[in-house]
């Protein structure tokens, strides 16, 4: 046995709640012991479509919150955007239905040992894993600023208890339906300066993560981001979910975002490689 996904398990988890929240569904699952092993940034992989489905692959969902209830009991919560066939199926499952869930999977956000000033940036449902992170950071004495962006108000996921966990929340929407009109990248530079941010944690569409990486580089702050690549297996066996990442030795390698991620150092990811292998990649 290796150390990859050491604490992952496979459970049939009952849905204990499924509420609409703007454009999303907030879904709570009774997962037993799994909850005790979750760290912010981890995800789960869920079978979709039910028995006899034509969909053969799992879908990955970031864990929004996990609650360890002790005695092998526990709950995880997800924020699901009904998008294509699979996520729409998950979002439509009633309370009491059981989902086949594997988790927790993947890397977690690195937690600084010192109290730092952190900026958490989420795009769309990408805010999900940030609230759990925020709680952990606050517990460590960090100051937490949060910026959430989306195309429109319905796609901002910011529940009340989540908002409470941060020191300051800024919202941007492209259509201006709530918060500041614009993108997260329009407001981040100022917040970094004003609040003397040490580290950015982000989760959202790849374009947003790339934009934040540029800002972080310019401002010389650290940047950990949770990436989202198409995943066939979620457990490291298929090599579909790779992206080019520069290692400490300076060499670019195609790393699996499911086990070497989803949380990665933004500065190491070669973002501009869309649909090509960057020159100089190992083995190219």
């Amino acid at each position, binding site marked *: 046995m290796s150390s990859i996904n050491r604490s992952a398990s496979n459970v049939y988890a009952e849905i204990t709640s499924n509420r609409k929240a703007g454009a999303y569904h907030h879904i709570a699952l009774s997962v037993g012991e799994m909850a005790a092993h979750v760290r912010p940034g981890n995800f789960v992989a869920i079978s979709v479509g039910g028995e006899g489905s034509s969909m053969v692959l799992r879908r990955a969902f970031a864990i929004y919150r996990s609650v360890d209830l002790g005695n092998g009991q526990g709950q995880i919560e997800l924020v699901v955007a009904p998008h294509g066939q699979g996520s729409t199926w998950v979002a439509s499952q009633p309370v009491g239905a059981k989902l086949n869930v594997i988790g927790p999977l993947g890397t977690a956000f690195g937690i600084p040992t010192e109290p730092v000033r952190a900026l958490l940036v989420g795009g769309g449902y990408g805010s999900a894993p940030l609230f759990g992170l925020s709680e952990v950071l606050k517990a460590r004495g960090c100051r937490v600023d949060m910026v959430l962006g989306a195309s429109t108000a319905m796609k901002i996921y910011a529940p009340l208890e989540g908002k409470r966990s941060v020191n300051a929340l800024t919202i941007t929407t492209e259509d201006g339906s709530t918060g500041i009109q614009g993108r997260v990248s329009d407001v981040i530079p100022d917040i970094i300066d004003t609040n003397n941010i040490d580290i950015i944690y982000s989760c959202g569409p790849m374009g947003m993560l790339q934009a934040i990486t540029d800002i972080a580089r310019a401002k010389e702050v650290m940047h950990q981001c949770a990436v989202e690549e198409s995943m066939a297996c979620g457990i490291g066996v298929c090599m579909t979910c*790779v992206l080019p990442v520069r290692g400490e030795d300076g060499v670019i390698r195609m790393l699996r975002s499911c086990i070497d991620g989803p949380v990665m150092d933004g500065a190491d990811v070669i973002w501009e490689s869309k649909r090509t292998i960057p020159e100089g990649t190992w083995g190219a």
Partner: protein
Amino acid sequence: MSDFDFHTHLGAARFNNPIFTASGCAGSGKELSQFFPLENLGAVVTKSIMLKPRSGRATPRMAETPSGMLNSIGLQGPGIDLFLENDIPWLVSQGATTVVSIAGETVEDYAILARRLRAVPGISALEVNISCPNVENRGQVFACDPVTARAAIESVRRNIGGELPIIAKLSPDVTDIATIAEEVVSAGADGLALINTVLGMVIDTNTMRPKLAGKTGGLSGPAIRPIAVRAIYQVHARLPHVSILGMGGVATGQDALQLVLAGASAVSIGTATFGNPFAAMSVQSELHDLLIAKGFSSFKEAVGYAHRSEV
């Protein structure tokens, strides 16, 4: 499991049970070992390893399709040196029965890979993936032409020495798979692996371009199972004494039984593992119970049973 005689052979190699992983669908083994002990498998079939490190293809590398998926990994891997240094010793340490899959870009590549592997302890057989582009022949896939298919297998045969069985893995994307099978067997293959993925494409109706960066990809999963069963049946009919490692869309014991009845002496589980990391284990126990329920006294009795004459 029980004392049912579940063992099988591919060429001279003996395996405790007939359920293997499929090449490229079990990572290096490490990733799967979290879910069950690898020693429970009939064998781990490694990702096809090449001479040099390979970045593989650009992303997106996959698209889900009805009851299947496309992939275009492009044989990403560490190359034979690191593979021998890291992967093999680790698999041996786990007690895993190991079949090494190799792939080359030239006939010479296959020769070198065979020489590098011939003295390596802890390997039970060699799967020779010839469904890859031949850079010396306008990128035509070795397995798609009897001449190049033969050349690749001969190259391995001449260089492997010893007893290591050679299993030639064929592509279904040919007009007549039984003839290719005959060629590679006469070139020295001890067994055949059937089938590799089927060439396919998905067009993303949003971008209105091929979804995969590599445009085409290999179709796998239950969608192709009828093609696998047909290919195995045809080849077993033509070459009843050559052992076949079957694969293609197997997700249950019933599925595996179809391939076995068609003529497979062992069955690899590929895409099903992506949906269910325990798939190989559940197929194994389902097949075991099914064979007993059907009254077979050993696994081998069932191999090719669908070919028996009507009474």
